[in-house]
């Protein structure tokens, strides 16, 4: 047993005790009492200018934002999803908040407010470089895995508070920093790629994000580099009544590889909060990106009060030949989730994969899925979606598979499984399949099942408590997706599955 395993073990114990002490289904519901600086309430051109100014942005960036803002004013919020969205007053939100003592960006983690660091350690995120996150799979602790490093960028409300392992990454040419920093330090890269995957006017929420995004992460992996560690961004909404609009841009140049992890939490509040993020992935020849998300924003209480409205646009552009992207998401939080991580398969022989677990409990609603746009020849896509619905929740899989006229010999396989717990929830599957090439093949499989009383009884007769039994059965149902996650995320995700479904039976 390695030391790192013990570190992991300590984190697990802490996590468990936090869950117990909170005594509530949502373990990240605490808020940090920290002085926060807000922009004035509401949204207008001045706010956009203010955000740009706060970030010391060059004029081209401000122009880009203003173009987006003017466009956004003409757009309407989409209503095609199977979601009941309460009316959102976009003028009754704060569009910028940052910890007050962050006026000057900290130069190292030592300058970060200890309260912030405390928050992150409470969340089980080891921000300081000493606490390197090491994952050793639980089943075989006697196996000595090599130490796995994870570089973390943490975004607290609107600003990035610290990025770890920067120097080590720089030595191999990898750029990993906040997007606000990238705009200043690497303007050519940002200008070239920002908005090239998700254009300003792509959709209502992406357009809003383009106007007001305050920070986010930027990654550039140079040609031929295999990123030596997992990169991770940790998003935390803390301030009240504040929207979070982060923007992530990742570029994998020719023959490069990176695995990127994203985690999200928010405090428990009665008011709903808006989150509209944009993630753009650019994948060039023979390059590969793995992008994993564990989304655990506050889901609202059991009566549907509060919670995050999560409207996210994520898209990967497989521009290069033989390029690959893999989206893996575990969506357990948010009152409303509207999210379709997509793959545009432009390069010949490129491939896109989407693995998703979406859990909705109580009054949560999720309309999520993917888009696989096949444009190049011999492109491949694979979709594995597992939707779990409990309480009075509604869970929709919405997916588009589009095979273009010039996309010869392309393949898609879709598997879409829904699991219901109880009889007051709903599961819906809405697949769109458009094939414009006779050499293409698209397969779709879908199942809907219920957590079986007999399965529960069987587990319990063997001594497993009811909630543990549900977690075991649901984790079994999700296994294919959990296996697609990086190790340390997989363990976290398994626990999250159990926590999200607490109180769903009996």
């Amino acid at each position, binding site marked *: 047993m390695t030391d790192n395993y013990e570190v992991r073990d300590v984190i697990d114990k802490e996590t468990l005790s936090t869950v117990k002490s909170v005594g509530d289904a949502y373990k990240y519901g605490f808020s940090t009492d920290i002085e926060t600086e807000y922009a004035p309430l509401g949204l207008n051109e001045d706010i956009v200018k203010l955000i740009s100014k706060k970030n010391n942005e060059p004029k081209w960036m401000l122009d880009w934002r203003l173009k987006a803002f003017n466009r956004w004013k003409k757009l309407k919020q989409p209503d095609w999803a199977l979601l009941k969205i309460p009316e959102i007053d976009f003028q009754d939100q704060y569009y910028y908040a940052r910890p007050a003592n962050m006026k000057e960006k900290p130069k190292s983690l030592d300058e970060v407010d200890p309260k912030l660091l405390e928050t992150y350690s409470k969340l089980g995120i080891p921000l300081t470089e000493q606490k390197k996150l090491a994952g050793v799979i639980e089943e075989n602790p*006697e196996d000595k895995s090599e130490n796995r490093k994870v570089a973390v960028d943490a975004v607290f409300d609107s600003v990035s508070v610290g990025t770890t392992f920067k120097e080590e990454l720089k030595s191999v040419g990898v750029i990993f920093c906040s997007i606000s920093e990238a705009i200043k330090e690497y303007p050519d890269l940002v200008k070239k790629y920002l908005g090239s995957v998700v254009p300003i006017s792509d959709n209502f929420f992406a357009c809003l994000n383009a106007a007001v995004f305050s920070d986010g992460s930027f990654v550039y992996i140079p040609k031929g580099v295999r990123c030596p560690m997992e990169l991770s961004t940790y998003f935390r909404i803390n301030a009240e009544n504040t929207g979070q609009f982060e923007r992530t841009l990742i570029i994998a140049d020719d023959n490069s590889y990176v695995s990127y992890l994203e985690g999200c939490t928010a405090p428990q509040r009665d008011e709903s909060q808006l989150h509209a993020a944009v993630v753009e992935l650019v994948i060039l020849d023979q390059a590969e990106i793995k992008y994993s998300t564990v989304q655990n924003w506050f889901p609202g209480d059991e009566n549907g009060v509060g919670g995050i409205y999560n409207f996210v646009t994520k898209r990967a552009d497989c521009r290069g030949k033989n390029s690959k992207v893999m989206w893996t998401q575990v969506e357990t939080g948010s009152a409303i989730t509207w999210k379709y991580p997509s793959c545009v398969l432009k390069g010949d022989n490129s491939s896109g994969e989407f693995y998703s677990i979406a859990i909705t409990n109580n009054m949560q609603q999720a309309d999520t899925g993917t888009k696989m746009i096949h444009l190049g020849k011999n492109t491949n896509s694979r979709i594995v979606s597992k939707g779990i619905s409990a309480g009075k929740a509604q869970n929709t899989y919405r997916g588009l598979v589009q095979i273009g006229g010039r996309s010869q010999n392309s393949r898609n396989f879709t598997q879409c499984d829904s699991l219901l717990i109880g009889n007051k929830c709903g599961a819906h599957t809405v697949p769109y399949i458009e094939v414009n090439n006779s050499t293409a093949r698209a397969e779709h499989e879908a199942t809907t099942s219920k957590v*079986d009383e007999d399965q529960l*009884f069987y*587990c319990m*007769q*063997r*001594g497993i408590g009811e909630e543990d039994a549900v977690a075991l059965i649901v984790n*079994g149902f999700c*296994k*294919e997706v959990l296996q697609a996650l990086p190790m340390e995320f997989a363990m976290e995700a398994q626990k999250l599955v159990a926590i999200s479904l607490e109180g769903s039976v009996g």
Partner: protein
Amino acid sequence: MLNIDDLKVSLEEEEKQIIKGLSLSIKPGEVHAVMGPNGSGKSTLSSVLAGKDGYIIDSGTVNFDGSDLLDAEVEERAALGIFMAFQYPIEIPGVGNMNFLRTALNSQRKTRGQEELNAADFLKLVRGIAKDLEISDEMMKRPVNVGASGGEKKRNEILQMCLLEPRFVILDETDSGLDVDAMKLVSKGVNNFSSSSRSFLVITHYQRLLNYIVPDFVHIMVDGRIVKTGDKTLALHVEETGYKDFLQLGKGKH
């Protein structure tokens, strides 16, 4: 060890009494067989002892080692040492056998206030038992009961029993769907497991299993009651003449 006193049980969904006043006392080390025609209430008895939902206890008591069994949750009964080998073992897709067994064992240990077994000790224990029951490593890696034959599923039940080391075992129609070889293997597993401190309740429709797992007592159950109790020869009598002699006894008590 187990004392059932004048137990009356109805189905929850329809007001129908299935067990109509059943008393049974089982001491440590004893093997009791309950035989009866279809619909006599045998399976209800095993379900009620294990704590399955869907039944209403109208009256009577079940006492296990001095405590009220009917008051305990299903998983608490398991931790007390009650194990039921299912007539139709349940499939759990995506959950590996090893993970399931380790979760079950450690859940029970936790309930009893014992330390959890570490991975190395656990593996050693399971592999030993699997070998005795001729269960392959490949099967141990599969999800619980998924894609297993009838015989494999029953052997898997016996493996779970040996691992969890219960003190009171209910074998619910364990012989159903087994060929002679599989029945011998399963019986061997049970017989190796039996001891002076463990008791068995063997629920069966046919006598043939009792050639391999020899009972100390045989009870004939008809229409929710035990109508006759004897030794193993009673089972042979049933084998020859069927249950028709006993049906009258059931009715006579109305």
